[in-house]
């Protein structure tokens, strides 16, 4: 239950379009779940993805961060869960490319899984051992604080991340500096309960952990918006606990009907568009070429080729890999600028936030009533 004295949800604060955005992202998440299941069955995706699920409530959390007057927030979606990324503008095709290791741009083919860092669109990918992204996002939030911007950072962690020292060090930094960071603990279904109570973990940092378990979507949205306001006003970090997942409860008739703009017409329109977007992504994925192995040679440093040396007056070096191919021309080739693809999102640009809505303008579906 929400504590007494909290401000209540003002549905009117959401424009119809914002509300529909959320519906669109939620339905997209569901469609993506289905598409991944199918692709695993056909062998197009590795079996690791069989357990793939998207937390719809995490989508709602991420959408709430994008509700005006917000803008320029940065979000780190949880491991393997693209829901919040969709809300921040990642496309289903990007997700599928990462999962399949396809695409010609570096991230999708090189790092797999969830490599969509693109701070232009407000995305930082979750990479590396559990718990670590709380540290990184605390630093993102620090950058906002340092520049005096009204922006906040949002990070999703598995509930068991609270067992890691990394998570605690991230929280300790965020609290000591009072940066605008919102930490959300989420679980995939079947997640083992942690030995630790998130509420107690929050108290350790002088925070109150807001439990969102069993709350309706509108309430989730409202609590996140409140935490965000608090963060950008200098109130410091928040910890929100989505609790264990109950998939059927989180995106059902009752939940949706209550959602502003959740009426039948809008819902069907959003759902149709979402399903169509995922279908087209699946089709495009199949048609995309496998990546070129030359990409593997692009340097891990920004200013140096990674090729083993091979010059004419040296004794030739067979220890260098594939010497016949190792000429510098070849490396030059792999550095050719790629065809611009602004929606691709796999090339990060460090700079100022983008803005605006993330959903393509949707025509009414023909059978709208």
């Amino acid at each position, binding site marked *: 239950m929400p504590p007494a004295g909290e401000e209540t949800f003002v549905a009117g604060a959401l424009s119809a379009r914002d509300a529909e955005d959320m519906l669109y992202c939620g339905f997209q998440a569901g469609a993506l779940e289905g598409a991944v299941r199918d692709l695993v069955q056909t062998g197009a995706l590795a079996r690791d993805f069989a357990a793939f699920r998207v937390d719809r409530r995490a989508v709602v959390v991420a959408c709430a961060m994008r509700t005006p007057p917000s803008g320029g927030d940065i979000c780190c979606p949880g491991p393997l869960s693209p829901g919040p990324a969709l809300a921040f503008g990642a496309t289903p095709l990007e997700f599928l490319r990462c999962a399949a290791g396809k695409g010609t741009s570096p991230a999708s083919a090189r790092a797999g899984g969830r490599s969509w860092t693109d701070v232009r669109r407000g995305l930082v990918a979750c990479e*590396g051992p559990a718990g670590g992204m709380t540290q990184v996002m605390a630093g993102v939030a620090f950058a906002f604080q340092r520049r005096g911007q009204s922006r906040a950072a949002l990070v999703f962690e598995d509930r068991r991340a609270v067992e*890691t*020292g990394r998570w605690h060090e991230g929280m300790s930094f965020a609290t000591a500096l009072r940066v605008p960071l919102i930490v959300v603990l989420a679980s995939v279904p079947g997640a083992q309960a942690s030995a630790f109570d998130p509420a107690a973990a929050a108290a350790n940092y002088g925070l109150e952990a807001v439990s969102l378990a069993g709350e309706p979507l509108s309430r989730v949205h409202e609590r996140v918006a409140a935490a965000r306001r608090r963060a950008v006003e200098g109130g410091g970090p928040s910890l929100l606990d989505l609790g264990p997942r109950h998939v059927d409860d989180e995106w059902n008739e009752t939940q949706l009907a209550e959602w502003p703009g959740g009426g039948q017409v809008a819902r069907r329109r959003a759902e149709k568009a979402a399903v169509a977007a995922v279908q087209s992504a699946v089709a495009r994925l199949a048609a995309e070429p496998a990546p070129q*192995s030359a990409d593997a040679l692009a340097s891990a440093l920004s200013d140096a080729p990674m090729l083993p040396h091979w010059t004419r007056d040296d004794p030739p070096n067979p220890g260098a*890999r594939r010497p016949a191919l190792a000429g510098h021309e070849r490396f030059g080739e792999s550095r050719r600028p790629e065809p611009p693809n602004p929606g691709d999102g796999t090339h990060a640009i460090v700079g100022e936030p983008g803005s605006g809505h993330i959903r393509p303008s949707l025509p009414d579906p023909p059978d709208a009533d």
Partner: protein
Amino acid sequence: MPTDAPPEPAQQPGGAGEAQPAARTAPPEQVARTRMGQPATFLEAVSEALWEEMERDERVFLLGEDIGAYGGAFKLTKGFLERFGPLRVVDTPIAEGGFTGAAAGAAHMGLRPVVEMQFMDFISPAYDVLTNYVATSLYRGAGPLPLVVRGPVGGGARAGPFHSQNVEMAFFHTPGLKIVYPSTPRDAKGLLKSAIRDDNPVIFEEHKGLYRAPRFRELLPAEDYAIPLGKARVALEGDDLTIVTYGLMVHRCLEAADALARDGIRAEVIDLRTLLPMDEDAVVASVRKTSKLLIVHEDTRTGGIAGEIAIRMNERAFEWLDGPILRVAAIDSPVPFAAPLEDYFLPSVGDVTAAGRYLHKY
């Protein structure tokens, strides 16, 4: 805080004295190959070694993520919890530094912990405690710390940069540690037993590409056997060229040696087995015989183990060298995820063969 509150039963130690196994259940399938007279995979060999050492020595116990109730991410410890109980098969929080530190404490008290990293990539959070605390214990006069950290390593499984690493070079520079990296089921079992019986901390790497592959199955000795740490193995004799390698690459190098043999080049393949301390004498002996040295490792090139071997051979076999010491290694990059990139990144049989031919002609 009343002190007379009864402890929660679920968390209680098994009994007043040493913990007793819950029941003498039948050994699980993956530890029964040898006793059934069947060949064992690499994974089964590791599993057998753990089981037998735990039966032999009650001080040995396991810690790691999901190794108990779940049986381990690779099911390597399936059935261990039932046989040895929760005080010898310890499911830990997701905190590799924390449970490695705890293993060190248990080792101070005379226990012999075997820590599993679910993927060896996750040893990095334990880097601090391993290099600063564990590796320095004997030196500081705090006594030997017998503990083993083991787990799956290596590329080729399309698992991307965070589940494909080789970790030897993170620890190779740390005095006080041993590093073992076996290439066959027989070696895996015998070396793991030695590692568990060793008084020093040991990092034990198991290549995922060897775990289940049927073609690496081997009939293991029926009796208890251990293979000494620090001794290399001549995997193939030859006198034209020495190839020094370890782990999965041993098999790639043997394939390359086959190809070279078809050209009349007789390569000697040395499987290091233990990387630290290194069996330098074995390499010296071979290089003095062949006068050519090629080093092959799956790990990335710069700062790889090939450098240390090269300078040691400069120190001890320079006069015998008839060509440069060369290496074949992975490209200096994180491990790529996509299959074609990963295949290109990893050293191939063709790479080794080409380098061998070149060096032979030199």
